Protein backbone atom coordinates (compact mmCIF):
# COMPACT_ATOMS: atom_id res chain seq x y z
CA UNK A 1 0.00 0.00 0.00
CA UNK A 2 1.41 3.41 -0.96
CA UNK A 3 2.01 6.10 1.61
CA UNK A 4 -0.65 8.73 1.96
CA UNK A 5 0.38 12.07 0.53
CA UNK A 6 1.05 14.62 3.27
CA UNK A 7 -1.31 17.57 3.33
CA UNK A 8 0.78 20.67 3.90
CA UNK A 9 -0.63 24.18 3.87
CA UNK A 10 0.39 27.79 4.00
CA UNK A 11 -1.94 30.04 6.00
CA UNK A 12 -1.89 33.72 5.12
CA UNK A 13 -3.81 36.98 5.03
CA UNK A 14 -2.53 38.28 1.70
CA UNK A 15 -0.06 36.86 -0.80
CA UNK A 16 3.01 38.82 0.25
CA UNK A 17 6.40 38.58 -1.45
CA UNK A 18 7.49 36.20 1.33
CA UNK A 19 4.50 33.95 0.79
CA UNK A 20 5.21 33.70 -2.92
CA UNK A 21 8.81 32.74 -2.14
CA UNK A 22 7.63 30.07 0.30
CA UNK A 23 5.15 28.60 -2.20
CA UNK A 24 7.88 28.55 -4.87
CA UNK A 25 10.43 26.92 -2.58
CA UNK A 26 7.99 24.20 -1.60
CA UNK A 27 7.19 23.54 -5.24
CA UNK A 28 10.89 23.22 -6.08
CA UNK A 29 11.17 20.67 -3.29
CA UNK A 30 8.26 18.71 -4.76
CA UNK A 31 5.51 19.88 -2.40
CA UNK A 32 2.44 21.80 -3.45
CA UNK A 33 1.28 23.75 -0.40
CA UNK A 34 -2.45 24.05 -0.01
CA UNK A 35 -3.61 27.57 0.73
CA UNK A 36 -5.57 28.70 3.74
CA UNK A 37 -6.63 32.32 3.35
CA UNK A 38 -7.40 33.36 6.92
CA UNK A 39 -10.23 35.77 6.11
CA UNK A 40 -11.99 33.24 3.89
CA UNK A 41 -11.83 30.31 6.29
CA UNK A 42 -14.88 29.14 8.20
CA UNK A 43 -14.04 27.31 11.43
CA UNK A 44 -16.47 24.46 12.16
CA UNK A 45 -16.16 24.67 15.94
CA UNK A 46 -18.77 21.99 16.61
CA UNK A 47 -17.83 19.97 13.54
CA UNK A 48 -16.29 16.50 13.61
CA UNK A 49 -12.87 17.84 14.65
CA UNK A 50 -11.19 15.61 12.09
CA UNK A 51 -7.65 16.48 11.16
CA UNK A 52 -7.60 18.24 7.79
CA UNK A 53 -3.89 18.98 7.35
CA UNK A 54 -0.70 17.32 8.52
CA UNK A 55 1.15 20.59 8.94
CA UNK A 56 0.50 24.30 8.44
CA UNK A 57 3.03 27.06 8.04
CA UNK A 58 1.27 29.96 9.73
CA UNK A 59 1.95 33.31 8.05
CA UNK A 60 -1.17 35.32 8.92
CA UNK A 61 -0.26 38.95 9.54
CA UNK A 62 -3.33 39.37 11.74
CA UNK A 63 -2.65 38.40 15.34
CA UNK A 64 -6.34 37.73 16.06
CA UNK A 65 -6.86 35.59 12.97
CA UNK A 66 -3.61 33.74 13.54
CA UNK A 67 -4.58 32.93 17.12
CA UNK A 68 -8.03 31.66 16.11
CA UNK A 69 -6.82 29.52 13.23
CA UNK A 70 -3.75 28.15 14.94
CA UNK A 71 -5.69 27.06 18.02
CA UNK A 72 -8.40 25.50 15.86
CA UNK A 73 -5.99 23.51 13.73
CA UNK A 74 -3.74 22.49 16.63
CA UNK A 75 -6.79 21.06 18.39
CA UNK A 76 -7.40 18.96 15.27
CA UNK A 77 -3.96 17.48 15.83
CA UNK A 78 -2.19 19.47 13.11
CA UNK A 79 1.37 20.67 13.52
CA UNK A 80 1.32 24.47 13.16
CA UNK A 81 4.53 26.44 12.86
CA UNK A 82 4.80 28.63 14.78
CA UNK A 83 2.60 27.25 17.54
CA UNK A 84 -0.34 28.90 19.25
CA UNK A 85 1.59 29.33 22.47
CA UNK A 86 4.59 30.80 20.69
CA UNK A 87 2.45 33.21 18.67
CA UNK A 88 0.54 34.26 21.78
CA UNK A 89 3.79 35.26 23.47
CA UNK A 90 5.49 36.81 20.42
CA UNK A 91 2.37 38.74 19.42
CA UNK A 92 2.24 40.56 22.72
CA UNK A 93 5.31 42.62 23.59
CA UNK A 94 4.58 42.49 27.30
CA UNK A 95 4.48 38.69 27.35
CA UNK A 96 7.62 38.54 25.22
CA UNK A 97 9.49 40.87 27.56
CA UNK A 98 8.42 38.89 30.63
CA UNK A 99 9.65 35.64 29.09
CA UNK A 100 12.88 37.15 27.75
CA UNK A 101 13.68 38.53 31.19
CA UNK A 102 12.78 35.25 32.93
CA UNK A 103 15.06 33.37 30.53
CA UNK A 104 17.94 35.58 31.62
CA UNK A 105 18.39 37.17 28.20
CA UNK A 106 19.76 40.72 28.34
CA UNK A 107 16.95 43.14 27.46
CA UNK A 108 16.27 46.86 27.96
CA UNK A 109 14.53 47.89 31.19
CA UNK A 110 10.78 47.78 30.57
CA UNK A 111 7.58 48.71 32.38
CA UNK A 112 3.95 48.24 31.44
CA UNK A 113 1.42 50.75 32.74
CA UNK A 114 -2.35 50.63 32.38
CA UNK A 115 -3.12 54.29 32.97
CA UNK A 116 -1.43 57.58 32.02
CA UNK A 117 -0.63 58.19 35.70
CA UNK A 118 1.32 54.96 36.07
CA UNK A 119 2.93 55.52 32.67
CA UNK A 120 4.36 58.76 34.08
CA UNK A 121 5.66 56.79 37.06
CA UNK A 122 7.39 54.42 34.65
CA UNK A 123 8.94 57.41 32.87
CA UNK A 124 10.33 58.68 36.18
CA UNK A 125 12.02 55.33 36.71
CA UNK A 126 13.34 55.06 33.15
CA UNK A 127 14.27 58.69 32.50
CA UNK A 128 14.16 60.35 29.08
CA UNK A 129 14.49 59.59 26.26
CA UNK A 130 12.38 56.46 26.43
CA UNK A 131 10.51 54.35 23.91
CA UNK A 132 6.75 53.79 24.11
CA UNK A 133 5.09 51.08 22.06
CA UNK A 134 1.71 49.37 21.80
CA UNK A 135 1.93 45.78 23.06
CA UNK A 136 0.30 44.56 19.85
CA UNK A 137 1.12 45.25 16.23
CA UNK A 138 4.28 45.61 14.28
CA UNK A 139 6.15 47.42 11.54
CA UNK A 140 6.93 50.13 14.12
CA UNK A 141 3.42 51.52 14.05
CA UNK A 142 2.85 53.81 17.06
CA UNK A 143 6.40 53.14 18.29
CA UNK A 144 7.50 56.47 19.67
CA UNK A 145 10.76 57.81 20.97
CA UNK A 146 9.72 60.15 23.77
CA UNK A 147 12.31 62.78 24.56
CA UNK A 148 10.69 64.62 27.46
CA UNK A 149 7.68 64.91 29.73
CA UNK A 150 5.79 67.15 27.29
CA UNK A 151 6.13 64.60 24.50
CA UNK A 152 5.04 61.83 26.86
CA UNK A 153 1.93 63.76 27.90
CA UNK A 154 1.03 64.43 24.26
CA UNK A 155 1.43 60.78 23.30
CA UNK A 156 -0.58 59.60 26.31
CA UNK A 157 -3.38 62.04 25.64
CA UNK A 158 -3.59 60.99 21.98
CA UNK A 159 -3.86 57.35 22.93
CA UNK A 160 -6.40 58.03 25.67
CA UNK A 161 -8.57 60.11 23.34
CA UNK A 162 -8.22 58.17 20.11
CA UNK A 163 -6.73 54.78 20.89
CA UNK A 164 -8.42 51.40 21.14
CA UNK A 165 -8.42 49.65 24.54
CA UNK A 166 -5.27 47.71 23.64
CA UNK A 167 -3.48 50.97 22.81
CA UNK A 168 -4.13 52.10 26.38
CA UNK A 169 -1.77 49.43 27.62
CA UNK A 170 1.44 51.46 27.82
CA UNK A 171 4.66 49.59 27.21
CA UNK A 172 7.58 51.81 28.11
CA UNK A 173 11.17 50.87 27.58
CA UNK A 174 14.58 52.30 28.19
CA UNK A 175 15.93 53.92 25.02
CA UNK A 176 19.12 52.18 23.96
CA UNK A 177 21.58 54.46 22.20
CA UNK A 178 22.44 52.44 19.12
CA UNK A 179 24.94 53.05 16.34
CA UNK A 180 22.33 53.90 13.69
CA UNK A 181 21.44 50.27 13.30
CA UNK A 182 20.08 47.20 15.05
CA UNK A 183 20.06 43.50 14.23
CA UNK A 184 17.65 40.79 13.26
CA UNK A 185 18.60 37.13 13.56
CA UNK A 186 16.60 34.47 11.73
CA UNK A 187 16.09 31.37 13.85
CA UNK A 188 14.87 28.28 12.01
CA UNK A 189 14.48 25.28 14.31
CA UNK A 190 17.64 25.14 16.40
CA UNK A 191 19.79 27.19 14.03
CA UNK A 192 20.44 30.84 13.37
CA UNK A 193 20.48 30.68 9.57
CA UNK A 194 21.22 34.34 8.83
CA UNK A 195 21.24 37.81 10.35
CA UNK A 196 21.01 41.34 9.09
CA UNK A 197 21.83 44.80 10.30
CA UNK A 198 18.89 47.15 9.89
CA UNK A 199 20.11 50.70 9.31
CA UNK A 200 18.16 53.84 10.00
CA UNK A 201 17.89 56.30 7.12
CA UNK A 202 16.65 59.82 6.50
CA UNK A 203 13.27 58.30 5.70
CA UNK A 204 13.04 55.95 8.70
CA UNK A 205 14.31 58.51 11.25
CA UNK A 206 15.42 56.83 14.48
CA UNK A 207 13.63 53.62 13.46
CA UNK A 208 15.34 50.89 11.46
CA UNK A 209 12.40 48.84 10.18
CA UNK A 210 12.72 48.16 6.47
CA UNK A 211 8.95 48.66 6.26
CA UNK A 212 9.61 52.25 7.35
CA UNK A 213 12.46 52.91 4.95
CA UNK A 214 15.35 51.36 6.89
CA UNK A 215 17.89 49.41 4.87
CA UNK A 216 19.36 45.93 5.38
CA UNK A 217 22.92 44.65 5.17
CA UNK A 218 24.51 41.33 6.01
CA UNK A 219 25.50 40.63 9.60
CA UNK A 220 27.84 37.76 10.41
CA UNK A 221 26.31 35.17 12.73
CA UNK A 222 28.94 35.21 15.45
CA UNK A 223 28.88 32.63 18.28
CA UNK A 224 27.73 35.44 20.62
CA UNK A 225 24.84 36.41 18.33
CA UNK A 226 23.82 32.78 17.83
CA UNK A 227 23.90 32.06 21.56
CA UNK A 228 21.78 35.03 22.62
CA UNK A 229 19.31 34.54 19.73
CA UNK A 230 18.73 30.88 20.58
CA UNK A 231 18.36 31.76 24.25
CA UNK A 232 15.75 34.36 23.24
CA UNK A 233 13.57 31.62 21.74
CA UNK A 234 14.35 28.98 24.37
CA UNK A 235 10.99 29.56 26.10
CA UNK A 236 9.06 29.05 22.85
CA UNK A 237 8.11 25.86 21.03
CA UNK A 238 10.66 25.06 18.35
CA UNK A 239 9.75 27.03 15.24
CA UNK A 240 10.69 29.94 13.00
CA UNK A 241 11.43 33.29 14.57
CA UNK A 242 13.00 36.68 13.92
CA UNK A 243 14.91 37.92 16.94
CA UNK A 244 15.48 41.69 17.14
CA UNK A 245 18.57 42.86 18.98
CA UNK A 246 20.40 46.09 19.69
CA UNK A 247 24.06 46.81 20.34
CA UNK A 248 24.09 48.49 23.73
CA UNK A 249 27.11 49.77 25.63
CA UNK A 250 26.99 46.49 27.59
CA UNK A 251 26.68 44.19 24.60
CA UNK A 252 23.76 42.74 22.70
CA UNK A 253 20.25 43.09 24.11
CA UNK A 254 17.07 41.49 22.74
CA UNK A 255 13.96 43.62 22.49
CA UNK A 256 11.53 41.60 20.34
CA UNK A 257 10.86 38.16 18.94
CA UNK A 258 8.68 37.86 15.82
CA UNK A 259 6.78 34.69 14.95
CA UNK A 260 6.02 35.46 11.28
CA UNK A 261 9.27 37.16 10.44
CA UNK A 262 9.57 38.86 7.06
CA UNK A 263 12.64 38.25 4.94
CA UNK A 264 12.14 39.70 1.47
CA UNK A 265 14.92 42.27 1.96
CA UNK A 266 17.16 39.94 3.94
CA UNK A 267 17.76 37.04 1.57
CA UNK A 268 19.45 39.20 -1.12
CA UNK A 269 21.90 40.84 1.32
CA UNK A 270 22.76 37.71 3.30
CA UNK A 271 23.03 35.40 0.30
CA UNK A 272 20.94 32.90 2.29
CA UNK A 273 17.64 31.72 0.83
CA UNK A 274 15.82 32.21 4.12
CA UNK A 275 12.44 31.18 2.71
CA UNK A 276 13.88 27.91 1.47
CA UNK A 277 15.47 27.26 4.88
CA UNK A 278 12.02 27.74 6.39
CA UNK A 279 10.41 25.35 3.91
CA UNK A 280 13.15 22.76 4.37
CA UNK A 281 12.57 22.89 8.13
CA UNK A 282 8.77 22.89 7.80
CA UNK A 283 8.82 19.75 5.63
CA UNK A 284 11.30 18.06 7.96
CA UNK A 285 9.04 18.76 10.96
CA UNK A 286 5.96 17.59 9.06
CA UNK A 287 7.67 14.26 8.36
CA UNK A 288 8.69 13.73 12.00
Amino acid sequence: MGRRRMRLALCYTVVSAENKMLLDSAKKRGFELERIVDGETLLAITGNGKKEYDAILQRSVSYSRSQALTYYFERQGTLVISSYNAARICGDKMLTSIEIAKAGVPTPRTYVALTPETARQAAQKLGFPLVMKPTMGSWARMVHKINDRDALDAALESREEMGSPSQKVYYLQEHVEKPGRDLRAFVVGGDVVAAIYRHSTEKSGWLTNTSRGGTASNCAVTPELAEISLKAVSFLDEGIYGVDLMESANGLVVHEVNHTTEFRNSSPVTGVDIGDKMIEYFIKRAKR
Partner: protein
Amino acid sequence: MADAECPECASPIAIAANTEVGEILSCPDCGTRLEVRALAPPKLEKAPGVEEDWGE
Protein backbone atom coordinates in the same frame (compact mmCIF):
# COMPACT_ATOMS: atom_id res chain seq x y z
CA MET B 1 0.56 39.48 -19.30
CA ALA B 2 -3.04 40.74 -19.06
CA ASP B 3 -4.44 44.13 -18.27
CA ALA B 4 -6.79 45.08 -15.47
CA GLU B 5 -8.24 48.40 -14.48
CA CYS B 6 -7.61 50.26 -11.25
CA PRO B 7 -10.98 50.48 -9.45
CA GLU B 8 -9.96 53.85 -8.00
CA CYS B 9 -8.59 55.81 -10.97
CA ALA B 10 -9.43 53.54 -13.94
CA SER B 11 -5.81 53.38 -15.11
CA PRO B 12 -4.78 50.21 -16.92
CA ILE B 13 -2.56 47.92 -14.82
CA ALA B 14 -0.45 45.17 -16.31
CA ILE B 15 -0.85 41.83 -14.53
CA ALA B 16 2.33 39.75 -14.73
CA ALA B 17 2.07 36.07 -15.64
CA ASN B 18 3.18 34.82 -12.21
CA THR B 19 0.66 36.94 -10.31
CA GLU B 20 -1.35 35.09 -7.65
CA VAL B 21 -4.90 35.60 -6.42
CA GLY B 22 -4.57 37.40 -3.08
CA GLU B 23 -1.46 39.31 -4.10
CA ILE B 24 -1.25 43.01 -3.35
CA LEU B 25 -0.31 45.42 -6.13
CA SER B 26 0.04 49.18 -6.21
CA CYS B 27 -1.56 51.22 -8.96
CA PRO B 28 1.34 52.94 -10.74
CA ASP B 29 -0.83 56.01 -11.35
CA CYS B 30 -2.72 56.71 -8.13
CA GLY B 31 -0.73 54.51 -5.74
CA THR B 32 -3.79 52.72 -4.31
CA ARG B 33 -3.00 49.30 -2.83
CA LEU B 34 -5.02 46.72 -4.72
CA GLU B 35 -5.73 43.07 -4.08
CA VAL B 36 -5.90 40.64 -6.98
CA ARG B 37 -9.30 38.96 -6.54
CA ALA B 38 -9.35 36.94 -9.78
CA LEU B 39 -7.05 36.24 -12.71
CA ALA B 40 -9.22 35.03 -15.59
CA PRO B 41 -10.26 37.68 -16.26
CA PRO B 42 -8.15 39.80 -13.89
CA LYS B 43 -10.11 41.61 -11.23
CA LEU B 44 -8.71 44.09 -8.75
CA GLU B 45 -10.27 45.48 -5.58
CA LYS B 46 -9.02 48.00 -3.07
CA ALA B 47 -6.78 46.07 -0.64
CA PRO B 48 -7.81 45.75 3.00
CA GLY B 49 -6.25 48.41 5.20
CA VAL B 50 -3.60 47.42 7.72
CA GLU B 51 -5.36 46.59 10.99
CA GLU B 52 -4.16 47.39 14.48
CA ASP B 53 -3.12 43.78 15.14
CA TRP B 54 -1.28 43.24 11.86
CA GLY B 55 2.42 42.62 11.97
CA GLU B 56 5.14 40.07 11.72
